[in-house]
């Protein structure tokens, strides 16, 4: 209710008064002031008036005019601006972000606020569009503008009032630009999918169009049509006239709230089992064991890693986790995506297809026949609501079987099988299904109605041929949410103007502000040791003997924060990327090339800025003194690990640099010994390296990574520096220091592994009391006949460990800072600021701690630090996964050319198959029972982890956990998912 309008010197004021009933029946009085003004510009270059009325903001910046004076044209050559309605943004944000359409868009404030209330992520994407300016989006604050503010009339609903306000924006722009000022007419098109709103707009003389009509009117409309989300094109067309509910409906919000409050419902993150896509687990704090969710009806349309609400099933339905492998490829691949009449008959049968039913029956039989120990039973649950969808862009390809042969021009449904095999396939409509066959495509999921067996989505773009290196690389970057686009212009603008010609200023000039407080260390014999071919050198070392017999050792880290100042676009980009991503053939940088490989990189023979940690160490590598300083250094040599090793080992080399490297090596061994004594873990992962042909860049062979003494030399000193720095910044910033911790693994993680060891290897076990005990017990687990066995167990233990994580020091107590794997009480990452954002923050904090410069506020604020940490933890994980899948892909390519038999180890046993790890390639693969022998005679002894079956030649055979087996390795392309993977066959 508007009470009065009053003119003030600065504008108009409206006081609005709203009464809302509160929950307990009392009236709440909400009174808000609302100021209307006449100095909000239209942001159009075509306008002559608005330039005069603009006012600066709190930073003294005048608003920029964004909208072009010669905007894009429709098919008929009409240059136009676009005003969009809320529902368009909510449903077609991908289309708005597309670079082929939607330029010069006006977003009314009313729309922006509606979007914000409905979906915050979409709001943020919209805000980013506005901020980046390249698509010329503007937010027009119509609610604060005298000319466009509308009153809510009596009896008018809030939605009608908002629609009216949005229409008013369109008509205001029309009259403001065309009748009042601009020389060239600019058409205003109002896009809205609400029929009622469209009609009203037309009555008011506004050119209102639906999204489809608008896209059709564009010159490239044909190409864009497929990108329109399915629920906008023809709402409800997927369902046909089938009304039967396939999935149970989700509970209402009120019921969920009440359920969570009284403890009958639980909230958690869904984790789909990687061996069985019909089985998931949800970890809930209320239960010790995760809740099992079995079958698609119980999974109820949830995707992997959705945040879901679950309800417990009665105790008689509690089950053991299935020991059967089910992959989606094998089930339902032949379903028809169409919505034809004959298809309905099948679909009404319910969620469970025939094949699936067979599996479930087998499961049920097993459950009833083997009344094993009760303790293995796990509580089961069903999903009754989804709090937050994890939907994002998905990469997949069209299932060939779902594309009909007809060559019509109308759009048809087809299935897209996603690369992530934990996810169901998605139905999309497209007219070009045939063209997209055999290509990797990007899609988005729009909805999953309860009466549809599959989620509905729409096509976004194509990446290229399946198995072409570019498409596969891009696909895996997208799948792991890695930002790989080139750096934008405003990021690159933050770099020094001199570019590659930037040099360290003359040290003899004491007036230079860049050199104040910097220490000149160019006389030290600094060198760097890195992998061969490394271009982003972020660390270098030096050592020398002091007159008193002690050693001075220095670690010098590239001074990235000299170039990356807080709160610049460059800093924000780095913070959001979080880390560089290393793929086999490609590196996705966190910071632009210029910094990473030149200005920051501690290249030899030139002066560079560095952040140095300098210790005075005694003969036993005990710290006597430690200093931190920003410095200028000059590296004498950039070694590779091998070169450095050769030089140290060569007794004829006696120059100072070599001697200092020998000192470093000697001290590093002491440091390592100290760490090992404290109980640092030496874990293993099956790491391999792919060699590429230098000419064709085809992968040629796979090699397991070798470690030299010099590797550990560098590693030890980096750890040493990280620890020292961690102590220093924790000292200065007890609440917000950026640290890294590694929690001890919970005993339950090792339960199965220990049980397997106990059964299969006569009572061997892994002790978990401390990291020291764990390290020692790992050393004891050796099979005299098989040297690799120890490594195998190390690999398997690594998988039972917790992941290390970054955290601000305020979020844990000091005892919990401990890094379990390294066996130190406090740790951080300081040594690779070129490729990790954590290190950038640590550099700034250390610079603040030593009084070099003031620490930026964002690194002093606990909440901001929490946000940074959350992001870099996620990015770090994604980068690791992306790196691994890249290796996996290339290993697959290598194996394509060399098929052979290799040794492998059984690392998992199921009742219908085994998983074998082949150390030579670092790959693991599933061998299904049907490829090994007779299904019917197979018997799986769960207590002994043994699978007995009659093999194809008719002989009785037993395979058990940890067995060394010989397998045929070859690489096959999975026709359904288009993914090449190792296929193993038991010999």
């Amino acid at each position, binding site marked *: 209710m508007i009470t009065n309008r009053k003119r003030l010197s600065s504008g108009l004021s409206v006081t609005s008064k709203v009464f809302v009933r509160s929950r307990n029946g009392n009236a709440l009085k909400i009174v808000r*002031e609302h100021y209307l003004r006449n100095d909000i510009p239209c942001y159009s270059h075509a306008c002559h008036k608005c330039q005069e009325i603009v006012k600066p903001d*709190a930073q003294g910046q005048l608003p920029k005019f964004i909208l072009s004076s010669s905007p894009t044209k429709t098919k008929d050559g009409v240059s136009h601006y676009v005003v969009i309605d809320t529902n368009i943004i909510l449903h077609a944000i991908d289309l708005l972000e597309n670079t082929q359409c939607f330029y010069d868009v006006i977003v009314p404030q009313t729309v922006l606020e509606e979007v914000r209330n409905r979906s915050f992520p979409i709001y943020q994407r919209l805000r980013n569009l506005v901020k980046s300016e390249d698509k010329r989006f503007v*937010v027009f604050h119509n609610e604060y503008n005298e000319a466009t503010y509308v009153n809510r009339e009596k009896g008018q609903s809030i939605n009608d009032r908002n629609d009216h306000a949005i229409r008013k924006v369109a008509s205001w722009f029309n009259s403001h630009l065309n009748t009042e000022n601009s020389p060239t007419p600019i058409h205003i098109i109002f896009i809205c999918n609400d029929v009622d709103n469209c009609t009203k707009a037309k009555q008011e003389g506004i050119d209102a169009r639906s999204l489809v009509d608008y896209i059709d009117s564009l010159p490239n409309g044909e190409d864009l049509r497929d990108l329109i989300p399915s629920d906008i094109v023809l709402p409800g067309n997927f369902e046909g006239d089938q009304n039967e509910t396939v999935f149970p409906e989700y509970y209402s919000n009120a019921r969920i709230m009440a359920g969570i409050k009284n403890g009958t419902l639980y909230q958690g993150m869904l984790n789909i089992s990687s061996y069985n896509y019909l089985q998931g687990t949800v970890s809930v704090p209320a239960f010790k064991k995760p809740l099992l969710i079995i079958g698609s009806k119980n999974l109820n349309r949830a995707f992997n890693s959705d945040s879901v609400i679950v309800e417990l099933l009665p105790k008689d339905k509690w089950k053991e986790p299935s020991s059967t492998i089910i992959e989606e490829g094998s089930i339902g691949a032949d379903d028809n995506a169409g919505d034809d009449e004959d298809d309905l008959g099948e679909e009404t049968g319910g969620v469970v297809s025939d094949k699936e039913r067979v599996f479930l029956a087998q499961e049920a039989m097993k459950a009833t026949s083997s009344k094993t120990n009760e303790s293995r039973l796990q509580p089961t649950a069903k999903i009754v609501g989804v709090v937050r969808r994890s939907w994002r862009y998905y990469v997949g390809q069209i299932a060939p079987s779902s594309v009909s042969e007809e060559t019509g021009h109308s759009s048809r449904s087809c299935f897209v099988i996603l690369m992530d095999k934990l996810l169901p396939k998605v139905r999309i409509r497209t007219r070009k299904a045939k063209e997209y066959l055999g290509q990797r495509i990007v899609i988005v999921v729009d909805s999953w109605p309860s009466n549809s067996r599959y989620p509905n989505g729409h096509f976004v773009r194509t990446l290229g041929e399946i198995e072409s290196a570019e498409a596969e690389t891009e696909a895996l970057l997208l799948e792991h949410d890695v930002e790989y686009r080139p750096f934008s212009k405003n990021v690159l603008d933050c770099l020094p103007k001199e570019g590659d010609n930037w040099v360290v200023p003359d040290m003899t000039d004491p007036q230079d502000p860049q050199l104040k407080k910097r220490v000149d260390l160019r006389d030290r014999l600094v060198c760097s040791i890195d992998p061969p071919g490394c271009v982003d050198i972020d660390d270098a070392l030096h050592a020398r003997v002091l007159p008193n017999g002690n050693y001075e050792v220095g670690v010098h880290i590239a001074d990235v924060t000299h170039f990356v100042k807080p709160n610049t676009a460059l800093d924000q980009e780095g913070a959001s990327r979080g880390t560089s991503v290393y793929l086999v053939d490609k590196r996705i940088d966190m910071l632009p090339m210029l910094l990473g490989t030149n200005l920051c990189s501690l290249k030899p023979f030139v002066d560079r800025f560095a952040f140095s940690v300098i210790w005075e160490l005694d003969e036993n590598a005990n710290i006597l003194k430690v200093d931190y300083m920003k410095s200028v250094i000059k590296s004498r040599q950039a070694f590779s690990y091998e070169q450095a090793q050769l030089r140290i080992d060569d007794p004829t080399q006696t120059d100072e640099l070599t001697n200092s490297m020998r000192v470093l090596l000697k001290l590093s061994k002491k440091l390592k010994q100290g760490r090992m004594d404290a109980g640092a873990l030496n874990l293993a992962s099956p790491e391999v390296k792919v060699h590429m042909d230098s000419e064709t860049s085809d992968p040629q062979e796979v090699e397991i990574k070798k470690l030299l003494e010099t590797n550990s030399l560098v590693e030890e000193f980096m750890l040493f520096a990280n620890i020292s720095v961690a102590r220093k910044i924790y000292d200065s910033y007890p609440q917000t220091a950026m640290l890294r911790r590694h929690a001890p693994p919970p005993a339950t993680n090792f339960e199965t592994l220990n049980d397997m060891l106990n059964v299969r290897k006569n009572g061997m076990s892994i002790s978990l009391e401390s990291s020291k005990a764990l390290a020692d017990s790992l050393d004891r687990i050796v099979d005299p006949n098989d040297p690799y066995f120890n490594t195998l167990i190390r690999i398997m233990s690594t998988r039972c460990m917790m992941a290390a994580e970054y955290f601000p020091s305020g979020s844990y107590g000091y005892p919990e800072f401990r890094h379990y794997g390294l066996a130190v009480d406090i740790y951080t990452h300081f040594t690779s600021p070129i490729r990790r954002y954590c290190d950038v923050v640590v550099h700034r904090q250390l610079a603040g701690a030593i009084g070099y410069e003031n620490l930026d506020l964002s690194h002093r604020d606990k909440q901001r630090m929490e946000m940074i940490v959350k992001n870099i933890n996620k990015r770090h994980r994604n980068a690791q996964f992306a790196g691994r899948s890249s290796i996996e892909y290339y290993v697959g390519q290598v194996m394509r050319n060399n098929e052979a038999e290799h040794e492998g180890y059984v690392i998992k046993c199921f009742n219908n198959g085994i998983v074998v790890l082949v150390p030579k390639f670092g790959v693991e693969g599933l061998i299904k029972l049907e490829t090994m022998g007779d299904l019917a005679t197979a018997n799986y002894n769960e207590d002994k982890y043994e699978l007995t079956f009659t093999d194809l030649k008719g002989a009785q055979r037993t395979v058990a956990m940890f067995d060394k087996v010989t397998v045929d390795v070859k690489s096959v392309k999975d026709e359904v998912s288009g993914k090449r993977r190792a296929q193993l066959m038991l010999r």
Partner: protein
Amino acid sequence: MELYSPEGLRIDGRRWNELRRFECKINTHPHSADGSSYVEQGNTKIICMVRGPMEPAMKSQVNATSSTVEVNVSLANFSTFERKKRSKTDKRITELKTTLERTFNECIMGHLYPRTLISVTVQVLAQDGGLLAAMTNAVTLALIDAGIAMYDYVSGVNAGLYDQTSALLDLNTLEENDMCSLTIGVIGKSEKLALVVLEDKLPLDRLESVLAIAIAGSHRIRELMDMEVRKHGNMRLAKVSV
């Protein structure tokens, strides 16, 4: 809702350096008090009444060299968006009272009124942010109306820091709840502060920009109050000369 949009507009449509609507009247209750005033700063509405200088009721309030200022604050139950009863000994009220007493003890020429009591009653009718600032303004006006000698106007306003970067002037409740803010009282046209209250954390290197905008705002409020006082004075003068 965005507290401060990238386009430079605040949640109620103001820009960063704009005051809310400021309206004031003096001599609103000529019969019940020696001096009275009514101040509206946005939706914050306050009545203030001053009695005195008078003889203190209690011996303890007697100061041989100067006057004693006693402030009583009462917040109406309906002043916030939810009806709520507050006890008289509410900590927040006591704090407001003490702050005001200290501020005005300094600004009144107390040595002119030894052994007297100046009793100030502040009644808050509606709260929408900037409570202490509006109270300061109301008390100043009421004291002037009562003819009590002061060194100069004390004009108050609050200012906050949004997102650690943008200083915003004259916050309303919504803004006050979500950012760190300080309240100042400026003496006359000078840059001397009779009152600074900062209850949250404010980064030291941003303090200057926040203070600068708050002082500018206070000067504007002083002008508005001065206009009202002069208008009222002229009106009375006209009555006397007739």
